[in-house]
């Protein structure tokens, strides 16, 4: 008996005991919930398992990056939803970053008025719920005139309640080649920038990095374009009956979601950029000036490398937030992952599986972004003692 009491006083034994109790409790609760769930599902006559993924979905999806019809499987429908989530998120990430960086820098402007403008923007978008903003954008999109009275913002670009229509280049094999040339040019430009920097460090001689890089990006595609006969024929949207034909288009749902997400997230990114730049002590700028570096060189060699360390981690978590926030699409009828999952769950009744899959997909996206963030942090962490 006294042995037992002594054992109970050992920190290690206590630790195991607490954990054992905790696990037992957790398992008991989980078991209770699972058994309830199974009973409930059986009573409702709902099947379990992921077999439903192979069955015919039977619902249409408004927009899709890959071919999809109501006769396709649930699995394909969910992939369509995922692609829609990723495409709107990717586009919004780019837009939000451009807008956010611009506004963050504007808030730091020595021009009082520009600073005020940026501050008003930030304080407005950050303090109104995203959903309200989305609903407003969507309502605006929906209350636009019908295609027959569409607004022609710029020649051949039409805004109507069916979304935005714009001219695209008519299909031509030359475009593919020009695009490849553009990719090659971008790769060459990256190489030139790296080489230019290394050469500058090695020899100290100035190297025309910027003009060379621009030339590398611009010249090859233009050359290919001209060589293939400069196929400039435009596919222009034209009114036919009650809607437009031809041209490219984005739906009102996509447009509303894209604008809403970008504007909202830009407000947060602006604050991140601002605090990142402010985090670099002013002495750094002064030291650069005293050494004779030009303002552009100070920005590039001294301020940005330091500011980016502060900016990138919260920036990636904003990207993650944006991706998660794209799930608000369900409120305005954009067929993203959540919306498609929701429809599937309603039709099959297999709520548990559907929600679990949806959560798993978002978790995987989150883990990827978190993984990147950890890698970046390790790479750039400042060495101190």
């Amino acid at each position, binding site marked *: 008996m006294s042995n037992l009491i002594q054992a109970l006083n050992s920190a290690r034994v206590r630790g195991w005991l607490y954990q054992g109790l905790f696990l037992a409790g957790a398992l008991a609760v989980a078991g209770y919930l699972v058994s309830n769930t199974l009973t409930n599902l059986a009573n409702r006559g709902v099947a379990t398992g992921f077999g439903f993924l192979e069955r015919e979905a039977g619902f249409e999806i408004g927009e899709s990056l890959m071919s999809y019809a109501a006769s396709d499987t649930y699995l394909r429908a969910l992939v369509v939803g995922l692609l829609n989530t990723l495409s709107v998120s990717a586009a919004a990430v780019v837009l939000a970053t451009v807008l956010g960086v611009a506004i963050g820098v504007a808030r730091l402007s020595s021009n009082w008025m520009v600073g005020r403008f940026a501050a008003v923007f930030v304080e407005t978008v950050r303090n109104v719920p995203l959903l309200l903003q989305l609903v407003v954008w969507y309502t605006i999109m929906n209350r636009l005139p019908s295609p027959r009275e569409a607004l022609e913002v710029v020649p051949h670009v039409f805004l109507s309640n069916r979304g935005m229509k714009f001219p695209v280049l008519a299909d031509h094999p030359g475009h593919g080649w020009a695009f490849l040339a553009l990719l090659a040019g971008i790769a060459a430009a990256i190489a030139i920038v790296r080489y230019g920097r290394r050469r500058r460090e090695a020899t100290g001689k100035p190297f025309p990095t910027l003009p060379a890089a621009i030339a590398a990006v611009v010249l090859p595609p233009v050359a290919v374009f001209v060589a293939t006969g400069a196929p400039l024929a435009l596919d222009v949207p034209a009114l036919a009956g009650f809607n437009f034909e031809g041209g490219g288009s984005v739906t009102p749902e996509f447009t509303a979601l894209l604008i809403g997400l970008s504007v909202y997230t830009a407000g947060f990114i602006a604050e991140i950029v601002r605090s990142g730049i402010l985090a670099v002590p002013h002495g750094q700028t002064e030291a650069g000036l*005293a050494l004779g570096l030009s303002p552009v060189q100070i920005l590039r060699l001294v301020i940005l490398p330091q500011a980016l360390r502060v900016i990138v981690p919260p920036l990636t978590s904003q990207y993650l937030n944006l991706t998660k926030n794209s799930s608000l699409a369900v409120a305005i009828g954009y067929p993203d992952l959540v919306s498609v999952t929701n429809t599937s769950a309603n039709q099959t009744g297999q709520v548990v599986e559907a929600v679990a899959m949806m959560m798993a997909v978002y978790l995987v996206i989150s883990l990827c972004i978190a993984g990147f963030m950890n890698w970046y942090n390790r790479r750039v962490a400042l*060495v101190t003692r």
Partner: protein
Amino acid sequence: MTENAIIELRKVGKWYNSYHALRDVSLSIGKGEKVVVCGPSGSGKSTMIRCINRLEAHQTGHIVVDGIELTDDVKAVEKIRRKVGMVFQNFNLFPHLTVLQNLTLAPIWVRGMAKSEIEEIAMMYLKRVRIPDQAHKFPGQLSGGQQQRVAIARALCMRPEIMLFDEPTSALDPEMVKEVLDVMTELAGEGMTMVCVTHEMGFARQVADSIVFMAEGSIIESGSPAEFFENPKSERTRQFLGQILEH
């Protein structure tokens, strides 16, 4: 005003909004001269020294450095900053670069020197400030005294004709002050023109050719160390010396 002055301030004035930071400051420093500037805090000594390489812009009067007048002209300022090295109170090393990279950054990007060439010179200066073994560490891994010596080496790598020191030892622990002052004394022995804001009176007595005492934005008096310490002319100086030499 001497003909061979390398730094010349004539009736320099500066305001921060309504606060008058410099009042008609006139000072002439010859080539190779070592000047120590002292005075109570808020007397404008840092402001004056920062005007010499235009970290601060003066509003009235003239500043001429090595024959070039400091004005709005960007090119003139660039030229002067290449000739004038500066050491700050808080070191202002670039934390994201190694010690060696801190030293080579400006020579590569401003002077257009080759990396191999400047690295050799940089190592030479690191040896001079007695920390060649720290070349590949980051500033955050060094002690304050070591950081300040790196900062001196960084300024020297630009081969300046003039060195400005803005309270280089004020942010250091007492036991590190000496190692920095030793480096500065050595540098003075080599004929570098130096303008140094400091409260280290031992250093001033030993190294300075002249001492400038400032209070409330004006130069109260200036003269040789002997004159200044033995025979201060103004009551304000005596009061200051009394406070500072007490301990």
